[in-house]
């Protein structure tokens, strides 16, 4: 097998060549890469189609919402989720990319949690699917560690000054999922009905007060 050079100078040179010579349209650039990999025998395009389907249909924030709804209704599961989230989601059949070192953090009346990756854009794909674009932008990555309350306000979350904010910057292979608070007046709802109330943003931490009748 070929080996990387591990030489940043070599990479900078290659990036400069790619910058000068590749078409500027990203669709054409990705197509060129796909064609090359198919010709080299490294990917099967029909498998690629199915990966796109998987992350459009089955693997997405609906999985995370199932986990949260179960945590709201099943104290033993919630305790396992807090102590070993990787095992808890594996038991639900939701293992996958970035679920190997999963941590759950819970909101309370006096605490709000929000997740970011300032250095790249690490995200718990297996539970939340594809990351929103905003999560990957310079605006979110730069600001949410420094002025989380201002960013949350842009998302419509106005936190009183006496509610603490914990920002989790995913600098290693640990990935975070926020357990939002269960909305009031939802006592009679089933797990599936509760799951429908859980928003993707609430599991990232850019949403807080979930509504009983979403």
């Amino acid at each position, binding site marked *: 097998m*070929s080996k*990387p*050079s*591990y*030489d*940043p100078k070599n*990479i900078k040179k290659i*990036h400069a*060549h790619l910058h000068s010579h*590749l078409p500027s349209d*990203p*669709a054409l*650039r*990705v*197509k*060129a*890469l796909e*064609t*090359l990999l198919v*010709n*080299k025998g*490294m*990917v*099967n395009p029909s*498998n*690629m*189609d*199915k*990966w796109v389907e998987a*992350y459009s249909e089955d693997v997405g924030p609906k999985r995370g919402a199932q986990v949260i709804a179960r945590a709201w209704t099943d104290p033993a599961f919630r305790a396992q989720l807090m102590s070993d989230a990787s095992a808890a989601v*594996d038991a639900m059949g939701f*293992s*996958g*990319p970035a679920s*190997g*070192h999963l941590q759950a953090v819970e909101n309370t009346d006096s605490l709000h949690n929000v997740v970011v990756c*300032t*250095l790249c854009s690490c995200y718990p794909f*297996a539970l939340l*699917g*594809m990351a929103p674009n905003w999560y990957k*932008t*310079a*605006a979110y*990555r*730069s*600001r949410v*560690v*420094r002025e*989380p309350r201002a960013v949350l306000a*842009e998302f*419509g979350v106005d936190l009183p000054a006496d*509610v603490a904010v914990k*920002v989790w*910057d995913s*600098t*290693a*292979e*640990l990935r975070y999922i926020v357990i939002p608070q269960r909305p009031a007046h939802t006592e009679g709802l089933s797990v599936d009905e509760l799951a429908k109330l859980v928003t993707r943003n609430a599991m990232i931490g*850019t949403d807080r007060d979930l509504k009983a009748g979403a």
Partner: protein
Amino acid sequence: MDGIHDLGGKLGYGAVDVNEPEQPFHNDYDGRMWAISRTARPTGIGIDWWRHVRELIARDDYLNRSYFDSWAQTEMAALVDAGICTLEELLDGCKASGDIPQALTYVEILAENARKAANFGRPVSTKPLFSVGANVVTDMQGHRGHTRLPEYARGKPGRVIKHHGGHVFPDAAARGDEVAGHLYTVAFCARDLWGADANTLDEVMLELWEDYLAPA
């Protein structure tokens, strides 16, 4: 490395687009690139070196090109660097030279997805230097190559809130050496990072390797 990717706390990047429609892929090429990253045969290119290759993208391209476009450029640069293809092949195409992997069913793809929960924990022979509750101070200078200590958290006092045992040390892995180091979650008071503007109750938590930390 003090690169453009190290964005935490930097000013001037504007508002967050909170009205973005919620959908898995915003362009067809987002999905194609994601799928390439999931299903390509192993190349020997590790995650830490791959991240470093992405960090080395020129400043304007890093900031202005879309996320999956930058994945494509990272993948291409890493493949050329490792000798798996040439620049000319990327630009002009190449003849089919290998059998493509076997087609899988949708159910098999979902099963493959479930197997992608990688374990980055590794045995480490030294005892941990810090226990939960220990006060620490982070390295002032940072590391020159790939590193996971962001600039905003350098030379700062923090408190260990969790020990995770040994994990692959990215600074070494990005140079091709797999070494394990003790990994901790360290809590920083927002005021120690950002000054008096920050709410006294707020904290920022990072996962940091022992190599980045000294006793306070």
